């Protein structure tokens, strides 16, 4: 069965019918071409499909599309402004905080949500927030460094 939904995706209102069993990650990728949302495990474990719903990180693979009806969804494609990268994206680049990149979009969205709540997170907080985003290529040191850089950049800009 299909269900009508209406929500804001990356700042634009979208109204459409969706299969009840379709999850956020698949709809974003297949209907809207937002392939920055990666599907890793389909079990809500790896965090590659993390998107923001009303600013809070959720797993796109373990959230049905009907559950975000009326909400605001942000993907990695919606972070930059006028083609410029967001401070968190810039910090990940500057710190070399990725290798294959599969986990990066989810990481950046989690970190974006963290910095909205805590502008100067300590290392324990950073690692706690990254617990839901698994990197299988390399360690987390460069990633933690990127979060620190992003926090400094946000603090300097304001």
């Amino acid at each position, binding site marked *: *069965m299909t269900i009508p939904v209406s929500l804001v995706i990356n700042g634009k209102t979208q109204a459409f019918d969706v299969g*009840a069993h379709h999850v956020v990650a698949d709809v974003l990728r297949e209907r809207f071409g937002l392939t920055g949302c990666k599907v890793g495990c*389909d079990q*809500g474990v790896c965090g590659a499909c993390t998107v923001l719903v009303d600013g809070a990180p959720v797993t796109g693979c*373990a*959230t049905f599309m009907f559950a975000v009806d009326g909400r605001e969804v942000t993907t990695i494609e919606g972070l930059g402004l006028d083609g410029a990268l967001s401070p968190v994206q810039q910090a990940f680049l500057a710190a070399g905080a990725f290798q294959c990149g599969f986990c990066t979009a989810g990481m950046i969205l*989690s970190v974006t949500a963290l910095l909205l709540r805590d502008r100067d997170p300590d290392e324990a907080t950073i690692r706690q927030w990254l617990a839901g985003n698994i990197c299988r290529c390399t360690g987390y040191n460069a990633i933690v460094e990127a979060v620190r850089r992003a926090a400094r950049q946000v603090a300097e800009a304001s």
Partner: protein
Amino acid sequence: MKAPPFHYHAPDDLASAVALLATLENARVLAGGQSLMPMMNLRLAGPDHLIDLGRIADLRRIEETPQGLRIGAMTTQRALEKSDLVRRLCPLLAEAVALVGHQQTRNRGTLGGSLCHLDPGAELPVVAAALDAVLHVAGPAGARRIAFRDFPLDYLTPSLAPGEVLTHVDIARAPANSGAAFLEFNRRPADFAIVSAAATLTLGVDGRITQAAIALGGVSHAPVRLAQAEAGLIGARASVSAWESAAHLAAQSPCDGDELYPADYRQELSGVLVRRALAIACQRAGGAAHV
């Protein structure tokens, strides 16, 4: 894999949800979906009907009552984590819920979902066991209360009759001079616990222990209360030897094992976590830690 198709129902009130659940064949309740959806994606679960409780606002409340705390089953784990009321009235729950899954799953996952799913490694059932939580359910035959100790029937199986829905959970206020601690051991921060331990203690005016509760997770299909260890603590003075006696009993408690974490390993962990949890609980109750 992807979830198989199903019929979606989004009732606005509890009575409609119960009526749907009682009449539809092969129907499941959807709370936050953080256990059910992975099971559907893996095709371990294939309900024909999914009854979404998300529109029933009454199920999302956190309230202070004369007896303590009343929490709606659909309250998200993240809402519990951020609640001042939970931190003040039930610090054990506040401490444990921060260890449930990760940020993304806590934003969707609910108290009721976790209690009804009853994963052996889950944190919230252990808290419910330690605090003697009372569960309220609604069903075709009306409402009833279930003591948490009677709730788990078997692996992943709650004591819910067909058509019954968990609506809210009551947790009694702790007496003065009480302290609690929740500890778990796992290999990665967001994982289910290999073993978890919850402990509560109340100290009398003479410094002796007047109340003790210890619950273990990860050692059986459901949380285990250590009645013998608790009885041994009551009337005792807070001391290293008191914690060690309880830890010794914890390490001897019957335990399930698997190929990754055999029973003797989990028993060792049980002893260590119980000893540490009691010391922290004692300190939080206003006593010395005795470590």
